[in-house]
């Protein structure tokens, strides 16, 4: 695992490794810059405004102390002017008020900007989801999608709403303070600068040694622990019955131990150094430096006693503001990672939609695959040179050994993916040139994994035709053998799926069939396994499927050859190629791959049937 290597292996020391490393760092920096520009670009103006306000607030935070120094100067005069003292004090308070208001407005501004930006980003990402190929969702878990839309967007919150303003403050306050102090007395200012410079130097070293790469290692370990938690929870039944009693899964324990070893090795030395260096910025330490040097200078007659005051009032606060720089830098790094992930999602390849789709020719309901090739990855074709046509109103079955590409082939028709060679035509038009809505009106599918949407049973059935009448919905449910089950529910068709009723696998399957019946597409892609999805209601599902296929052009992915002996045409796939075609009788007689599959099935069936003899 790469994170492990990062954790244990020292940084490459030979020059070539260093050069390659530097190139990689540069490449990453460019990617980060581009991603940030793209994701954060829209808020840059608003953030600049808020930053300006924050700068004003920062100046207004320093200025009162200058006024307090002036008050002190007046107090020390032989004849203090009481009126001036009160006036100065009031001005100082007024400035503090300005500071409070300006920073509050800046914060509200940045937060509102963030809320709006989060919303826009989420919308943008959600809309993107509607344009990627359906096959994309099989490769990405829904967890990935959630991470991008929610967690990553949330990660940007600290950067947009806080970190930028903190950075502005962390730069403005020390600069203004130092300018003032240098103006008052440059020698004493240098004394104050020494520990600060020492801190910054040490911090830079710290970051160089324990910087980005190692932080990457931290994230990687954290993800590894997360993944092992998910894994061991999902597999809890196995852990429980095969694992050691009362002990977590071994892989989880390894991840936890590894994480902790990594963390000790990484954060241990860093904490040691950091704790030592942080003392330099402690106000008490700065106070000692300023007073020891200042009293010495006063004793030598180099400076007036009053000169100490600006350093006491303004100088000591420098430490705290500089510390926030570190936090902001970390937030910025995390946000960069998030921005890169979001950019990757936004850049995911989309299913191309032609600007002026052809409406399709309703009079020709046939489907044609013309020299179709497809590969998930270049150079590893899953389908090659497959040509066939579905005649209107017939059932065509796809068979072949597992891995032969039959499911992939069937999924090209509803455009889960686009072909990489050749074309798929529906009603005479290439599916890529069809309006997606027209395509899905023409092609329906019933696969094993049924997805129900949140809503009532009625809404679920009428998904494709929200305007359907109650009678039509009921008819579809009746044909799908679901009507009576629905009537058993107190809320009937209005029952909320997942709230009022939990449908069994077979019931959900029948609901998806009812859905397809109501949508009534002329062409249907069907997985034969659906018919055996739920042994409890096999017969009901089978009846529903029989209703569904009637009168349509059907392409069926077949696993059990016995189910499809009566279909109009059987296509035999082997390693992505169409090797045989014909009716069952023809193929059985031809003595090719189909015959071998059939015989293997027969043999297996004999085993299944003959089990009792062995007992």
């Amino acid at each position, binding site marked *: 695992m790469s994170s492990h290597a990062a954790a244990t292996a020292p940084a490459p020391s030979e020059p070539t490794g260093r050069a390659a490393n530097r190139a990689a760092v540069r490449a990453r920096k460019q990617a980060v810059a581009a991603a940030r520009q793209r994701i954060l670009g829209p808020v840059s103006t608003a953030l600049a405004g808020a930053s300006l306000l924050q700068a004003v607030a920062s100046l207004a935070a320093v200025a009162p102390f200058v006024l307090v120094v002036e008050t002190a100067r007046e107090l020390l005069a032989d004849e203090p002017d009481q009126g001036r003292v009160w006036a100065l004090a009031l001005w100082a308070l007024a400035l503090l008020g300005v500071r*409070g208001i300006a920073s509050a407005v800046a914060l509200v501004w940045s937060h509102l900007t963030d809320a709006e930006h989060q919303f826009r980003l989420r919308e943008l990402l959600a809309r993107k989801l509607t344009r990627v190929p359906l096959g994309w969702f099989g490769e990405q878990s829904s967890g990935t999608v959630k991470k991008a839309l929610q967690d990553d967007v949330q990660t940007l919150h600290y950067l947009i709403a806080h970190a930028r303003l903190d950075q502005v403050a962390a730069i403005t306050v020390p600069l203004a303070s130092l300018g003032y102090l240098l103006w008052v007395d440059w020698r004493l200012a240098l004394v104050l600068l020494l520990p600060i410079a020492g801190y910054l130097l040490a911090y830079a070293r710290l970051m160089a040694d324990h910087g980005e790469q190692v932080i990457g290692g931290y994230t990687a370990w954290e993800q590894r622990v997360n993944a092992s938690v998910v894994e061991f929870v999902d597999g809890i039944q196995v852990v429980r019955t095969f694992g050691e009693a009362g002990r977590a899964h071994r892989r989880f324990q390894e991840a936890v131990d590894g994480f902790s070893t990594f963390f000790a090795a990484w954060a241990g030395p860093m904490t040691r150094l950091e704790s030592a260096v942080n003392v330099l910025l402690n*106000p008490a330490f700065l106070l000692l430096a300023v007073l020891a040097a200042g009293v010495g200078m006063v004793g030598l007659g180099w400076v007036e006693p009053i000169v100490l005051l600006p350093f006491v009032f303004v100088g000591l606060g420098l430490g705290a503001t500089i510390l926030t720089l570190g936090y902001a830098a970390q937030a910025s790094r995390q946000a960069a990672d998030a921005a890169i992930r979001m950019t990757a999602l936004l850049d995911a390849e989309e299913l191309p939609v032609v600007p002026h789709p052809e409406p399709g020719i309703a009079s020709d309901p046939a489907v044609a695959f013309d020299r179709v090739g497809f590969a998930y990855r270049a150079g590893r074709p899953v389908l090659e040179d497959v040509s066939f046509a579905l005649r209107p109103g017939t059932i065509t079955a796809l068979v072949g050994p597992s891995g032969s590409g039959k499911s992939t082939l069937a999924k090209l028709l509803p455009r889960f993916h686009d072909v990489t060679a050749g074309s798929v035509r529906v009603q005479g038009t290439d599916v890529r040139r069809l309006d997606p809505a027209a395509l899905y009106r023409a092609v329906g599918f019933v*696969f094993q994994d049924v997805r129900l949407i949140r809503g009532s049973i009625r809404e679920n059935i009428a998904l494709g035709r929200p305007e359907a009448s109650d009678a039509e919905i009921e008819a579809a449910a009746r044909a799908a053998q679901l009507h009576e089950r629905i009537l058993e529910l107190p809320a009937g068709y209005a029952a909320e799926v997942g709230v009022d009723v939990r449908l069994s696998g077979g019931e959900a399957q029948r609901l998806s069939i009812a859905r397809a019946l109501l949508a009534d597409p002329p062409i249907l892609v069907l997985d034969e*396994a659906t018919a055996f999805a739920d042994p409890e209601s096999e017969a009901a599902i089978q009846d529903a499927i029989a209703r569904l*296929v009637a009168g349509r052009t059907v392409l069926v992915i077949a696993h059990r050859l016995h189910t499809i002996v009566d279909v109009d045409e059987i296509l035999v796939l082997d390693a992505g190629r169409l090797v045989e075609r014909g009716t069952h009788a023809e193929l059985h007689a031809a003595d090719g791959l189909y015959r071998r599959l059939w015989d293997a099935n027969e043999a297996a069936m004999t085993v299944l049937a003959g089990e009792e003899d062995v007992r």
Partner: protein
Amino acid sequence: MIRKLIALVPPTDRRLLPRYLVSILLHCLGQAVAFLTLAPILGAVLRGDAAGAWPWIGVLAIAVALAGVTYYLQSMIGFRIGLDMMQHLQTRLGDHVTTLPLGWFTPATTGPLARTITGNVKDVMGVFAHLVMPVATGVLVPVLVAVGMLAVDWRVSLAMVVSAPLLWLVSRWANRLYGRADRAADAAAAEANNRVVEFAQTQTVLRAFGALDRGDVALAGALRAQRRANRRLVWATVPGTLVFALAVEAAFVVLVYVVLSLAFGGSLDAAAAIALFAIASRFVEPLTHAADMTNAVRGATNSAERITALLAEPSLPEPETDVAPGAPALRFDGVRFGYRPEQAVIEDVALEVPAGTTTALVGPSGSGKTTLLRLAARFFDVDAGRVLISGRDVRDYRAETLLAQVSVVFQDVYLFEGTILDNIRLGRPNASDAAVRAAAAVARVDEIVDRLPDGWDTQVGEGGTALSGGERQRVSIARAILKDAPIVLLDEATSALDPRNEAAIVRALRELTHGRTVVVVAHRLSTIRDADQIAFLEGGRVVELGDHERLLAAGGRYAAFWAEREHAVGWRLDAVAAGGPRR
């Protein structure tokens, strides 16, 4: 809260706590003394007596040294505690979760688990590493300064003593306002999360039925609600922030007023007054920082609570002493059980499975078949009655003894990341390679391996996604064969398989169950027919019991079920047959 946190510190580290707290106290003391020396030092210097300041600078130096050394100490101890906590808590959480009843594992509880084990633990370990110190400094230093001021001027001290708790209260009030809005924003985010996942998962069907806009509406509504909650959160922070800033200013005004009036009244000389200003300016800053920390403190508190709550989830009780298993038989004795107390899933089930025989559980979905299997494996404890394995109540065994008695083959097969061999070896971790391969061969896993690109070393991927359902099942059967326990609990897969896979599985299962005591939730007709005994379940009760022939002859529920299933097996997809209903 503090007690909860301390309970989360590993026992070996608890002896470090006094040292840790003393370091922090001394650090605060050092800082407070350092600030207080401002009065004599500035007083002396401004009066023109630079030499008189030096002894006090000595005191300051000592105070700074004390603060520096104790800062380093507490930081290292805090790091040590945090680090130990991380490993200790993660291990403890992981171990504890495995002892929970299986009923605990629902999406609602397991979803946040990864966050608890990494995120919340991180928050809690950060308490000792980063949080106690700034909060203690923020509260204690001003208090100590105020107390120390008594020695300088009691009136100014009083002004400070009064304002400190006031500021504290205001910041707490502001945080409470924020907390309420924050919870609302959290809830909105959770809802939006669900909608996002749903939107992604239902893409296929939304697109296929041209209903994208419908899914859009639900998602967009949730996203808008989230934006609304976020905006409300922003506005909720405004009054708190403003009032706190105002309170700080008011405190300042009071101090300035007191000091200046005293100075002008002549009871305080100018140098002392200025020194007091200087101290006062150091007085508010730590308080503000402490108030800034409240968010982190609340986060850590929530995290500690979540961890404590998880650790407090009751495990399945385990006896102190073990009992020895007898002959491998199985008996349900007046068993009642419900996942929710008011809703019994199993009602008064009595069932005897003699050693070496097979009992098939058959019945409509939701009749309690799988639940019975789970009770036998003690994933749950019964509400009434007992489950006996090898002659003893399952609750009388220590977990490892019970586990050694049973192998379980589940319906939804889960494979861990790693190779196929790794996954089979789970059945007996100390098994030799030869034994693992032998088990694999029996379950025909070697046939699967032949077609995989990297052979035996192929990574099967999280959840076993690289293998088909039937193949995964064969691996899980090999696992059980390797384990070689006398009792087999088997939940047959319902999903359809091609006959080849099915034949391989049937053969493998025959090896696995041969000569063993078997309870099987059966879907395969051959499995049902060949069982020594069939228990037909309905509504959580055994309504018919006997062998295939007898039950068939009885013409009851089982006979009807059998007829329908047999009919379904011969089903053919046929456009002509689709003309009308068959029944």
